[in-house]
């Protein structure tokens, strides 16, 4: 199928864009964009540069107590007895709480709620919270933990997902219907088996993606106050205040109106703060019990136990291609290591398949993904949730097939470009799609054509592409209400305050909201103040996950601001006796488009509107249209718009040690309209950085005892300033018909192709295919040696017969092309 041409059997992709809904198209509200698209500073950056910005641990309340959590030293055990008497008797201890007091199971996904604030009857990994203490200071709380007696009956722990799948005698969650399987999805589209059988080339390999952590520099922290008015206020380093609010009400059995959840400045999240966590419940419960404010600050080690990092996946991928480079089918089987709890695992399991059907046209597809419980810290959503792992496998296979077909890897991706306005084989509606331009950009920027193959020994270039969602149609709890909301208040001073439910986790969502409102109301950015993520003040937003904020909250902001814009234009027009269309709002003024001398300040314009109408304010909201395939799970991964990324990485392999240096990564990302290019570049660079770290340096694992091996920032090595490639970010703006002014996501998509691009570059550099992440130098060296042996065995000819597939590398047909 060529770009832009629609097959008859697929739904009309423009149907929604034409139908009435609350999106506003890519056009500016006035003649041209005044604020949108400018390289403005972030609205909250100055306070971050001076230390004024308050993060949760920067807050202190009079009489505040400090909480600490007792954790399980066993990976799998039944709790026989907990005795907290001695701890309670310790001077300075004001409260102790155990699981029995909060037995209600919680979880963001209503169907898989399997966590409790503290272990009730069982512990399921080393680090599972068991009891919590509030005391006058952290030292006393720590001392009290040592006085809590817990008797455990040890159970067999399961660390290997394959074993967890096979064993029926050891069950990590009793009552789970399918043994240790938390979710299994098998979906088939088209005729993958037939297509593979008919393909000119087929590759079938095993890939492994290891566990990685978010490692935001701020750990989890929560502060709770229970006021004399019976209101529980929780300040928490969370990226989903709304779900925390809901779950607090359920677990604490408090009426939701009596709870207020506030997210202060957040020191990074990347998905790791997307679940409600034990400390939020414990702080709240202990605040209620002691009638004193209680703060919990997780240590770095505890942050590694709370985890929710990237799921390790074992992936068998089979992909076919025609001689002229057309993708025919993909058949994948994925075993997902979920760790001890469900978290977002249901979504992860779907995403591991659903998000692979672009930007390459994939006509036949099957995926079979199974997520199992193991006795390890729970996995969850990490930047590029669920799809980073299979994307690695698919993009490496594309390069393998390109090589077999004798085609340039970028050319292969170009030939398979699915185009804009199409529907994928799994029924996802794709609107704008600038992937072809992304490819062209990285091809040019990296000097691909001129440099590839000419870099010298051990050096190479590799490329990959990907797609990601801009929010998802799937609402985690079923309801018909909007997914995002905005409320605007206008002050007579000319200041506009926007109340946004969205969590600014550093990605700049407050700046995006301010930018949009300033654009619509003709204000300067500094005339807009954003109040965000406070359940008492702001409308509900579902949270900062699935890259939904710019798209959904952005549209809600336009919706709200445009209502006000109309009122202001109308009031000014009436004052001047002209048609409202003649009133332009820009730069802090309202002026007459035809008689430029006629101008009033925005404040004055607001006065006119307030006098004419009423106290000025507006709400706006956004909900996704009905999207997705008509089958169970068809809405998961269905997004109102997809972002696309192409990446080229350059590597320099040290043939003596197996160490790989990455001098450059070029990433081009189609984010629709870049509302603020600085923010978009920051997201692209940060994503590429994170992917780079995952390839070589980072590994979250447990040892033979189930203990997290690297629970600190010395051993869990995230890249330093000296390790990083030069990241070259560029932007493609394929204006989306439904995004706010045409914008789509930028925060997660650009991570995906970094990893396979590096893998493909290593192959280009030295002829080895690495299939098991992370690419430690030991693995690289083993693969190089295996290849050398194979080359020698085949008489020194390159591209000879298969060598041993050691160190997670494929031997075989790769050969060197130079």
């Amino acid at each position, binding site marked *: 199928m060529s770009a832009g041409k629609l097959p008859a059997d697929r739904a009309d992709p423009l149907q929604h864009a034409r139908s009435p809904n609350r999106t506003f198209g890519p056009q500016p509200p006035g003649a041209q964009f005044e604020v949108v698209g400018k390289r403005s500073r972030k609205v909250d950056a100055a306070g971050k540069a001076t230390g004024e910005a308050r*993060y949760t641990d920067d807050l202190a309340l009079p009489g505040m107590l400090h909480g600490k959590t007792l954790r399980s030293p066993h990976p799998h055990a039944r709790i026989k007895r907990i005795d907290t008497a001695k701890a309670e008797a310790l001077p300075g201890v004001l409260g102790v709480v155990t699981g029995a007091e909060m037995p209600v199971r919680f979880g963001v996904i209503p169907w898989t709620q399997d966590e409790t604030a503290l272990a009730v009857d069982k512990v399921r990994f080393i680090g599972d919270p068991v009891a919590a203490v509030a005391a006058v200071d952290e030292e006393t709380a720590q001392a009290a933990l040592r006085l809590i007696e817990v008797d455990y009956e040890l159970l067999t722990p399961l660390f290997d997902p394959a074993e967890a799948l096979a064993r029926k005698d050891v069950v990590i969650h009793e009552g789970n219907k399918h043994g240790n399987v938390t979710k299994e999805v098998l979906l088939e589209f088209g005729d993958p088996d037939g297509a593979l059988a008919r393909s000119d080339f087929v590759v079938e390999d095993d890939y492994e993606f290891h566990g990685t952590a978010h490692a935001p520099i701020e750990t989890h922290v929560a502060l709770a106050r229970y006021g004399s008015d019976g209101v529980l206020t929780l300040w928490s380093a969370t990226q989903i205040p709304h779900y925390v609010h809901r779950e607090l009400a359920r677990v604490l059995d408090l009426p939701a109106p009596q709870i207020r959840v506030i997210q202060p*400045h957040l020191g990074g999240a990347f998905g790791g703060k997307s679940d409600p966590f034990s400390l939020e419940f414990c702080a709240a419960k202990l605040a209620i019990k002691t009638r004193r404010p209680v703060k919990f600050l997780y240590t770095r080690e505890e942050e590694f136990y709370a985890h929710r990092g990237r799921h390790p996946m074992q992936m068998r991928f089979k992909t076919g291609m025609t001689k002229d480079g057309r993708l025919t089918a993909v058949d994948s089987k994925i075993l997902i290591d979920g760790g001890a709890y469900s978290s977002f695992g249901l979504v992860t399991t779907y995403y591991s398949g659903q998000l692979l059907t672009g930007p390459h046209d994939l006509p036949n597809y099957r995926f079979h993904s199974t997520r199992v419980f193991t006795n390890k810290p729970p996995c969850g959503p990490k930047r590029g949730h669920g799809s980073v792992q299979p994307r690695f496998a698919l993009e490496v296979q594309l390069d393998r097939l390109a090589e077999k077909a004798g085609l340039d890897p970028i050319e292969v991706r170009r030939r398979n470009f699915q185009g804009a306005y199409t529907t994928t084989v799994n029924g996802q509606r794709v609107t704008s799609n600038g992937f072809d331009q992304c490819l062209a950009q990285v091809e040019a920027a990296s000097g691909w054509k001129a440099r590839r193959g000419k870099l010298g020994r051990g050096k190479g270039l590799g490329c990959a592409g990907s797609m990601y969602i801009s929010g998802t149609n799937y609402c985690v709890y079923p309801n018909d209400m909007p997914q995002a909301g905005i409320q605007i208040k206008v002050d007579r001073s000319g200041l506009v305050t926007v109340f946004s439910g969205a969590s600014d986790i550093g990605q700049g969502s407050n700046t995006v909201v301010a930018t949009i409102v300033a654009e619509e109301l003709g204000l300067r950015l500094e005339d807009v103040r954003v109040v965000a993520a406070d359940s008492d003040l702001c409308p509900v937003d579902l949270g900062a996950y699935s890259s939904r904020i710019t798209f959904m909250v952005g549209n809600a902001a336009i919706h709200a601001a445009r209502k006000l814009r109309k009122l202001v234009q109308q009031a000014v027009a009436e004052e001047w006796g002209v048609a409202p269309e003649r009133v332009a709002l820009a730069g802090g003024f309202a002026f007459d488009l035809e008689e430029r001398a006629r101008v009033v300040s925005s404040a004055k314009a607001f006065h006119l509107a307030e006098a004419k109408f009423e106290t000025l304010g507006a709400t706006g909201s956004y909900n996704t249209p009905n999207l997705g395939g008509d089958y169970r799970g068809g809405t998961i991964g269905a997004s109102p718009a997809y972002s696309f990324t192409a990446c080229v990485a350059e590597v320099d392999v040290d043939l003596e040690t197996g160490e790989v240096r990455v001098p450059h990564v070029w990433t081009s990302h189609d984010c629709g309209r870049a509302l603020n290019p600085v923010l978009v570049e920051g997201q692209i660079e940060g994503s590429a950085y994170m992917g780079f770290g995952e390839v070589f340096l980072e590994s979250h694992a447990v040892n033979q005892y189930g203990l997290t091996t690297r629970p600190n920032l010395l051993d869990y090595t995230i890249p330093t300033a000296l390790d990083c490639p030069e990241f070259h970010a560029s932007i493609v703006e394929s204006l989306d018909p439904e995004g706010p002014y045409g914008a789509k996501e930028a925060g997660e998509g650009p991570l995906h192709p970094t990893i396979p691009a590096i893998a493909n570059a290593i192959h280009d550099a030295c002829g080895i295919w690495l299939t098991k992440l992370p690419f430690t130098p030991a693995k690289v060296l083993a693969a190089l040696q295996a290849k050398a042996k194979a080359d020698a065995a085949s008489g020194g000819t390159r591209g000879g017969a298969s060598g041993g597939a050691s160190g997670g590398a494929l031997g075989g047909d790769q050969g060197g092309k130079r």
Partner: protein
Amino acid sequence: MTAETRILRLHVNGSDVDVAAPSHWTLLEVVRYRLGLTGTKQGCDKGDCGACTLLVDGRARLSCITLAGDAVGHRVTTIEGLVTKDGLDLLQRTFDEAGALQCGFCQPGMIVAARACLDAKPEATRAEVKEALASNLCRCTGYTKIFEAVEQAVRAGRAAHTNGPASLVGDSAALAGGRR
């Protein structure tokens, strides 16, 4: 053993302060939880991440692995101390302007480390900047815009040097005007 609390006379951000703190407290604990200077952050609490970096006698120091008592007799400067009556430090402005601040959590440490670097080497090259910031982990930015921010400050500093103080803001002039 029980905690021994002492009065420490510290010199922080230009003033002497007397603080009562247990002997085993770190400078980070004292600065954050006794002096309320919460700009200095904590990310690992054991010397691995650089979030707690502040200046002691103008040199970068990890306050989470510095005992408060060891700072007695020395000049301590936190991120808050870089703001003077003349406004923000040049680096605080260029970090903002360059878009180096995402979540911002690493930034107080990053900015003071960059300050120490530029005080020692006003003409630091990118390679030297990378070296100087290699104890400070940032999880958001990939460092690219951080390097750009420091380079921007180097250029602005150079302009100030050659043209006199009037152009101190150099290419970050827009900032001075645009600040709210």
